[in-house]
């Protein structure tokens, strides 16, 4: 007990967040082993990790760096396609374990690289330019992938942006990326254990960054750019650091996504503008700058529409009403006052 008291506040908070994920993981694993988990929940475990990771990644940009990104689905798309491409290229020649590990590294790195490339010109500007550029980036990536054809035969790789026929492959050629039809046959490497580990890694990276010297510099830039600059903080450097880490983690979520389904297509539904907004909703609902909140909010918002399937046609309608309700309850000034007045902690204190 005494040792716990000595922990500083941020370490304690980090431990609670990680502990929450670990406990959930253990409970879910026990339930799976005991056969008490429905098929739906079993199928949802990996997507829950995916959306929690990407919500945390976006929160780093929105909450800690204080910039708005509307293209995180685009980074997820880059991570998904680069890793899936790697995986199908080495499907036959490598064992599943090391191949998936490399796919994770490749997906995260390439996506971080894209974040860096976009950040270099845009993060030098002041104002909401990042939002506009990332919005465009997400749409551009989706459209480029939809016209990209890549095949492989004995002579090596063939690329085309026109159609399948202009690849001019030998008869033994195999198509790897088939334009709008995307990548099929990605090995099913994602599972809940990997997902949970990656979520913990993501949380460790982000929470450690926040509590480090760099993190304090990043938050100083967010709170007052001029003051931060005047004390000698290299603004562009720290902005780029935070944004490329955020993009890389989004790519990580993309890798999990790509290896969870046997088909990967860049559709408006999964990598479009609406998905980016959806991720932003997770962040806003969980609290901007509140990493633990992002994890919890994404879990709730992914589960909610699935659990409301019984409502059939009214499902999405009720989902949006519930969403508005939760938002108001969490963030409306009156609701905040109400909660403070009747908060559990206060009531408990009164009893003492």
């Amino acid at each position, binding site marked *: 007990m005494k040792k716990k008291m000595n922990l500083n506040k941020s370490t304690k908070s980090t431990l609670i967040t990680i502990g*929450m994920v670990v406990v*959930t993981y253990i409970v879910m694993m026990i*339930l799976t082993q005991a056969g*008490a*988990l*429905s*098929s*739906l*929940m*079993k*199928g*949802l475990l990996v*997507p829950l990790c995916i959306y929690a990771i990407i919500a945390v990644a976006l929160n780093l940009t929105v909450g800690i760096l204080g910039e708005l990104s509307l293209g995180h689905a685009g980074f997820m798309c880059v991570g998904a396609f680069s890793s899936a491409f790697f995986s199908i290229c080495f499907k036959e020649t490598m064992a599943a374990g090391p191949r998936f590990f490399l796919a994770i590294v490749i997906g995260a790195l390439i996506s971080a690289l894209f974040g860096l490339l976009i950040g270099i010109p845009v993060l030098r500007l002041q104002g909401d330019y990042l939002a506009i550029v990332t919005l465009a980036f997400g749409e551009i990536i989706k*459209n480029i992938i*939809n*016209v990209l054809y890549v095949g492989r035969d004995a002579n090596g790789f063939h690329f085309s942006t026109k*159609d*399948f*026929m202009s690849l001019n492959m030998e008869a033994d050629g195999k198509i790897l990326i088939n*334009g*709008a*039809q*995307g990548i*099929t046959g990605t090995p*099913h490497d994602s599972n809940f254990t990997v997902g949970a580990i990656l979520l913990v890694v993501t949380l460790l990276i982000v929470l450690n960054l926040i509590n480090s010297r760099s993190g304090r510099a990043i938050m100083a830039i967010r709170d007052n750019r001029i003051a931060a600059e005047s004390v000698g903080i290299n603004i562009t450097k720290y902005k780029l650091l935070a944004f490329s880490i955020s993009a890389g983690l989004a790519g990580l979520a993309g890798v999990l*996504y790509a290896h*969870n*389904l*046997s*088909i990967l*297509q860049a*559709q*408006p*539904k*999964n990598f479009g503008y609406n998905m980016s907004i959806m991720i932003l909703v997770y962040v806003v609902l*969980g*609290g901007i700058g*509140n990493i*633990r*909140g992002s994890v*919890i*909010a994404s*879990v*709730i918002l992914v*589960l*909610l529409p*699935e*659990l409301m*399937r*019984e409502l*059939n*046609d009214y*499902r999405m309608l009720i989902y949006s009403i519930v969403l508005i309700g939760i938002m108001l309850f*969490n963030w409306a000034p009156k609701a*905040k006052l109400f*909660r*403070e007045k009747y*908060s*559990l*902690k206060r009531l408990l204190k009164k009893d003492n």
Partner: protein
Amino acid sequence: MKKFISVLLAAAMTATMLVGCSAKEAEAPATDSAASTEAAEVEGAAFKIGGCGPTTGGAAVYGLAVQRGAQIAVDEINAAGGINGYQIAYNFADDEHDAEKAVNAYNTLKDWGMQLFMGTVTSGPCVAVVENTNADNMYQITPSGSAVDCIKYPNAFRVCFSDPGQGGKSAQYIGENGIASKVAVIYDSSDVYSTGIYQSFAADAANFGVEIVAAEAFTADNKTDFTIQLQKAKDAGAELVFLPIYYSEAALILSQANSMGFAPMFFGCDGLDGILSVEDFDTTLAEGVMLLTPFAADADDEATKNFVAAYDAAYGETPIQFAADAYDAIYIIKAALEKAGATPEMSASEINDVMKAAMLEITVDGLTGAGMTWTEDGEVNKEPKAVKIVDGAYTAM
């Protein structure tokens, strides 16, 4: 303050998760709330058939058609005494035309106790779900998932033609019947169905003496003005324009071709079915358009007439080809179950084992083709019907 929120959210999360866990126990009894109202009325042992497709979002028109077409077949069979004397319980889940959601929908149906799976409607989700049905050894028949990989496992079968089937058959039809030798193609490069047909058409065209003089693409974001594509086709001297696309864009293409004075022959696939019912579309423009379709709602055989009448009475609209595919899918399941002598007491896996063999032995006369048979790869054998629009109605060619 923040702490309170996180405590509250954590509590909410635990609650939702617990609901997710307890859902299984709650749904164990045969009659449950998740099933559609029709399913709830079924008493005693029943075959549980689950369907899955988009009933919301951009592709909802196809998902709803399948849901309703299958519902009509289920009602007919139940009214006529069921399969092997057992009734059918039917439940349909929404997949929003998204692979991830389709897997969730499939898992929901599994929790309901589904024994046979009729789905999914669209190709992309179908490729994702077939991995799960194969792992679970669940019988699957897709009414309209046309991509090759949709049925790559032995447990999966198909009612419609595959994309390569349609493209190749179109090239063959155009070439062998000497309809045209110079062909232009206008297709949607962002659409799986359209690119699939185009690729197989282009691959086969040369074999049948058909020359592709122009292949022009458009995307889903940019599908209102086709004058550039049409001008290129015109300049290339195309005698025929092949349209492996859906009818709403085709209607625009036809009227824009008309206004620029370009009058080639037009040829399409089953996606063009429905062009005559487009609002504000001058159907005289569609005069002479040829399409390969397995189903025409105004055919005058008894089965089609009854189906169209029943569909119209129940839902107030004319069924499209997807509805007919789904209607056939249910009757195919019925024929195979009867052949195999299966009972609802068998598990999904046991049913699949007997169904795989029975599917190869049955012959089904359906709305989308007579004498349909299946091969081990899951593909259907049936003749494509080519129709030509004459005087605002389909006429067999």
